[in-house]
């Protein structure tokens, strides 16, 4: 798991526009799970279709970044591009689901995916150790045993570490409830 940068989306977009390939790499890293989740959780695309959409979305973001008026609105813009491409993939694949059915199911899932993205941003503010163990256990489905072996920790301490990190995460999230929108990436 890479260390997330402290750059805001706006700063990241500005650096990408200036041609900084490291900033582009960071943008892809920051949004890859989000785009992937929209494809496979929101729209239930097959892995093959999801890969096409995933690559196409980032290609469009790369070539059209200059057209994004509000650089701080990167996430909703990427979400919109991804939804459109997912709908294209579904209609092109001759699926029998109606557009209305898809839209209803997808709207519910998008709320959850957006909430998950906010939680992931909060995770980014935790210590390296907490970020790593939460990601391994929840997002990568690693067992206590694997985590114990890979991190060199006694297996009996994994559960308590995860619980402690979840409490820190909850405190961080609940502390944000009253925080202004622009302060999310501040440490």
């Amino acid at each position, binding site marked *: 798991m890479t260390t997330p940068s402290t750059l805001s989306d706006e700063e990241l977009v500005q650096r990408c526009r200036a041609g900084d390939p490291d900033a582009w790499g960071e943008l892809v*890293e920051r949004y890859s799970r989000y785009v992937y989740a929209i494809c496979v959780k929101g729209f239930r695309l097959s892995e093959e279709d999801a*890969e096409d959409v995933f690559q196409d979305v*980032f290609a469009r973001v*790369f070539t059209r970044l200059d057209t994004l008026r509000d650089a701080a609105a990167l996430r909703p813009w990427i979400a919109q591009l991804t939804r459109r491409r997912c709908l294209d993939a579904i209609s092109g694949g001759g699926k029998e689901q109606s557009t209305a059915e898809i839209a209803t199911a997808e709207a519910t899932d998008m709320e959850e995916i957006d909430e998950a993205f906010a939680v992931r941003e909060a995770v980014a503010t935790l210590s390296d150790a907490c970020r790593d163990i939460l990601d391994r256990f929840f997002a990568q489905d690693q067992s206590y045993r694997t985590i114990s072996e890979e991190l060199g920790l006694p297996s009996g301490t994994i559960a308590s570490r995860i619980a402690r990190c979840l409490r820190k995460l909850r405190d961080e999230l609940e502390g944000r409830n009253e925080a202004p929108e622009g302060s999310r990436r501040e440490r």
Partner: protein
Amino acid sequence: MTRSYDEERLGELLRLLRPAPEGWVRAAQELPFARLTLDEIVARAEADLEFRAALIADLEATLARAGYEPDLRVVSELKKRYAES
């Protein structure tokens, strides 16, 4: 809006954003380099009519002879540009 999170809910949300396959992420991260390669090939084709004609005749072989690594995005974009030439 005030939200409260219990451990179970946090776990559900953390599970939702799983890593995309590494190869997909790497390919997307390499887009700027693919773009540079593409720009270089197009500039050369504009300056060198013989190279341009060779691209139109046999794109993949010409790129290989010129020492370019086969990148699907670059090849696909060049095909679009030169298919109707």
